[in-house]
């Protein structure tokens, strides 16, 4: 587990450095069990930083979504580092961003948080509805939920996010400073969930996805929450050429989800930010995981594990499979 005092001390030390612009971490949320992103600009801000199983957001997104506004004449652009706290999965986003040369390694200062799993907020809210303020802590194999003076223990498995049940990299793969002791891998990924969907008949598959896609509101939360979706001019919303229309119907929604998932083929690092952001509960990870599985099986490639390897689709092997070609 991460020691909060140590975390705050390190954050204070880091933000006091001349070459660091901000530290991105977590702070308590405004209601229920939530935690929310914190942007530490001066040492005093660091006192509200926390880390708990409620810290579900992937902060690597903030490194890449910052607008690059024109700098007034006579001023230099702020080239100081961004320090960011990352869990195991989030660290893979940074590796993948580095692999794609989204920024230089010098641009970020990575504060690694060895993570024993975070909760699925939907599961928590279903189990403890209408709690206006509460806390979640992980103790051994139990989540301790405290609110309104009561304390309840729940088995870890019941509230753990699905992505954590398959997590193979709980300890960050890249870090400049580690905020806790290494966590040993406690889960493995057998893709049984993808296989269940793969085994459905074609009609069942379309019926399944048609229902999910048709309720999509096209709010673009899945795209914007994704640490890998940082194109300034996104294919999903560009007007010329207009790949998919802004109108919302099953055709455009399907096109949207195919294109979104395809653009993450060989890039998705399984952090689950898209699915967590979706207000309509569309199982977006099921789409991403199909690519993840295929990429691993067909090309023996795992995104976000090695910043030196070339991006999957900008390379090839002469021996790639071609039994589907006429």
């Amino acid at each position, binding site marked *: 587990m991460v020691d909060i005092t140590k975390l705050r001390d390190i954050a204070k030390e880091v933000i006091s450095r001349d070459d660091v612009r901000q530290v991105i971490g977590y702070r308590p949320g405004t209601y229920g069990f939530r935690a929310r*992103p914190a942007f530490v600009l001066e040492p005093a801000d660091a006192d509200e930083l926390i880390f708990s199983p409620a810290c579900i957001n992937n902060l690597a997104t903030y490194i890449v979504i910052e607008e690059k506004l024109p700098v007034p004449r006579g001023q230099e652009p702020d080239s100081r580092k961004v320090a960011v706290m990352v869990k195991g999965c989030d660290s893979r986003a940074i590796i993948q961003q580095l692999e794609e040369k989204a920024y230089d390694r010098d641009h970020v200062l990575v504060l690694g948080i060895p993570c024993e799993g975070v909760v699925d907020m939907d599961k928590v809210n279903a189990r403890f509805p209408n709690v206006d303020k509460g806390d979640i802590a992980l103790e051994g194999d139990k989540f301790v939920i405290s609110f309104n003076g009561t304390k309840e223990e729940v088995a870890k498995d019941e509230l753990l996010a699905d992505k954590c049940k398959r997590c193979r990299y709980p300890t960050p793969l890249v870090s400049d400073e580690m905020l806790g002791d290494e966590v040993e891998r406690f889960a493995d990924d057998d893709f049984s969930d993808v296989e269940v969907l793969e085994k459905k008949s074609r009609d069942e598959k379309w019926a399944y996805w048609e229902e999910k896609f048709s309720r999509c509101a096209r*709010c673009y939360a899945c795209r914007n929450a994704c640490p890998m979706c940082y194109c300034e001019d996104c294919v999903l919303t560009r007007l010329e050429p207009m790949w998919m229309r802004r109108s919302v119907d099953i055709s455009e929604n399907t096109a949207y989800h195919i294109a979104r998932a395809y653009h993450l083929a060989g890039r998705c690092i399984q952090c689950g930010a898209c699915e967590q952001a979706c207000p309509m509960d569309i199982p977006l990870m099921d789409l991403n995981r199909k690519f993840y599985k295929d990429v691993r099986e067909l090309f023996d490639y795992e995104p976000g594990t090695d910043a030196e390897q070339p991006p999957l689709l900008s390379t090839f092997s002469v021996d790639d499979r071609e039994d589907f070609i006429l």
Partner: protein
Amino acid sequence: MAVKKLSKDKVGEALKELMKFRLVAPAKSDDVVIFKQISDPAEAYLDYGNSAVPPKKMVFPQTETLFRFVTGEPELKEKNVEEEGQTVIFGMRPCDARAMSIVDKLFDWDFDDPYYQKRRAMTTYVGMACTEPPSVNCFCTSVGGSPFSTEGLDVMLTDMGDYYAVQALNEKGEKLTETIASQLEDGGDEKKIEEMAAAAAGKIKRSIKTDGISEKIPTLWDSDVWKKVSASCLGCGTCTFLCPTCHCFDIQDEVEEMGEGRRCRMWDSCMFSEYTLHASGHNPRPSRKERTRNRVSHKYSYFPSKFDDIACVGCGRCINMCPVNIDILDILEQVVEA
């Protein structure tokens, strides 16, 4: 008009009778509740908190055709909203109904929007009072509403345990209750409803003082507070698309076949980077800071200064659904302090 009773085992029958209209009711899609047209009473899911997308989409659809055109033909084929027929929205929450009467002010302001207004007039609104607040983030009592508010509704239902109390609130509502008269019984208890209303209002946990906010916000144009509250914004459209009072739209032409197409309007969100993007490439709201400022200012300052009503009904959707826990009440608190 006296309060009637609709026994819960007769709701199905009543819904069946209402199906001679276009009947819209909350229904489940997996675990998400959405309003949609139903063709079977069993689809209706009335024991719900609140829908993910507010029922405004039935009157102001996310995508709607305005007219169709064919190259070479000088005549446009305009959309005839009347063809959609009389609609009944069944079981909507009082805040969402109040939102409709707020949005009305915009759509019959300087331009009478025929699509919206016709559809509005053809729709009967049957509300479902909140005996329990649907979420922890409900704050309707702070912005002029209440869990039993009847504003914008034609009929109000109140869950009394084994029956619904049915109150027709106006002529339109009375007409509707007449169509299901055979399912109704006399003897609803008005006093008990009032008691429940007071109790429900007391259960709302969150609040904000709105006095003076609409005057204060314009003075903060250059304030640092916006940078602070927008730092964690992802720039998605969740807060605006799921807001019952947000009403911004974009108009686009879509070509369907050679030389044939339609002009349609679709929801737009001020949180999108394309929202104010000029053809020149210049964007007067270049970052999330300006966009957040606009969203809050529009709801709590621009709209009230024009229409005397805060464009927020306190449903709490934007708080509940925000992926990064940006909280409008938290923003307003910081604005007051700034």
